[in-house]
């Protein structure tokens, strides 16, 4: 059965979507990702959609789901590499993509995740200050 590979990059997980997601494949991805976030204690998930030419509401929902599930497990999600035509279409379609951060590429995505994690750590420190 087809499976989308999930790579580990330090404290983060990287998913590169290169094929058209159909129902079963998308569900498998959600399950696999959530399991891995849990298993590795990953702090961030990067979804690379630079090879994706069409993002419809189905795909939008999957991305939103992944972001929500990861957040519950204390991981932030960043979508990277959105193509201009896709961005323009999503704005016109009115797809909110809530709770999803975006960055231009994997490198920037990781920088963004690091910043968010640092802020998290700072707040943690403040809380434990007595």
């Amino acid at each position, binding site marked *: 059965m087809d499976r989308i590979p999930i790579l580990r990059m330090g404290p983060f997980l990287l998913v590169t979507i290169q094929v058209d997601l159909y129902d079963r494949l998308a569900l498998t991805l959600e399950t696999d990702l959530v399991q891995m976030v849990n298993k590795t204690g990953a702090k961030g998930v990067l979804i690379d959609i630079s090879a994706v030419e069409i993002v419809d509401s189905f795909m939008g929902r999957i991305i939103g789901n992944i972001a929500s599930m990861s957040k519950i497990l204390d991981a932030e999600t960043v979508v990277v590499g959105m*193509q201009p035509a896709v961005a323009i279409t999503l704005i016109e379609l009115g797809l909110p993509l809530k709770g999803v951060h975006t960055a231009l590429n994997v490198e920037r995505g990781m920088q963004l995740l690091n910043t968010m994690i640092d802020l998290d750590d700072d707040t943690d420190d403040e809380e434990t200050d007595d």
Partner: protein
Amino acid sequence: MSVSISKIFQKKKSAILELWIQNQLKDEGLREDLISNDELRASSEELIETLVSTVKESNINDVNSDDFEPVLEILAGISMTRARQGFSPRETGLFVMSLKEAILTILQEEIKDDPTALFAESMKLIRLIDHFSVITFETFIKGREEVILRQTDEIAEISTPVIRVWDGILALPIIGTLDSARTQVVMENLLQEIVDTGSSIAILDISGVPAVDSLVAQHIIKTVSATRLMGAECVISGIRPEIAQTVVHLGIDLSTIITKASLASALKYAFTLLKLEVRKTPKEKTSLL
């Protein structure tokens, strides 16, 4: 005695040609700078040959006949070329109309005994040649329109440069009226440039834009949203006070958009976003030795 224009044509072909060329050369509007006498003779000959070979008794009353295709082709070719070379419509039109004069003159000589017949044949001829004239004009205009279209494209290219002002910062100064179509092109260019250069901030400067209507404003808002969706930021600078006024009166909400008065302040803001600072270099310490 029945008269046949086509027979007269065959018989008097060279006479018509010579008279026509004479008329053209005599005309004050002749553009010797744009076309040589030889070229003039060549195109005149070509047209006469084709005209004589296609005009028949059967089609002289039918200006739309398919038989005249070759004539129309030649006329179209001449017209297009002249449009591109810079001939005026009048100069191009005169080419066909002076032919009409030449033929009518010859007709008059050939049918001088029968005014009724002369009139009838002349009318047939005039109708035909006028139809050709109109086609010549239409093709001329089409030729000019192509020039205009090409120039419009060139202007569109020049008036939306994309400047990399710094690592990761793009500036797009827009000059001239922004209509809905142009704004879409600007938007697509901007987003593609962001991807190609890996820039995280784009400054759209509209100080060269005199007015913005609500459709254009919507497009600008969409452009900013699309930029953010891709993970970059878009700042609008150079909004004229008149535009600020119009935007508020139109009830357009720009509160989610970052606007700066000038490109300079937008650049400063961009530096802050990238955590960059511009400082004066310290004065050189003078040695006391």
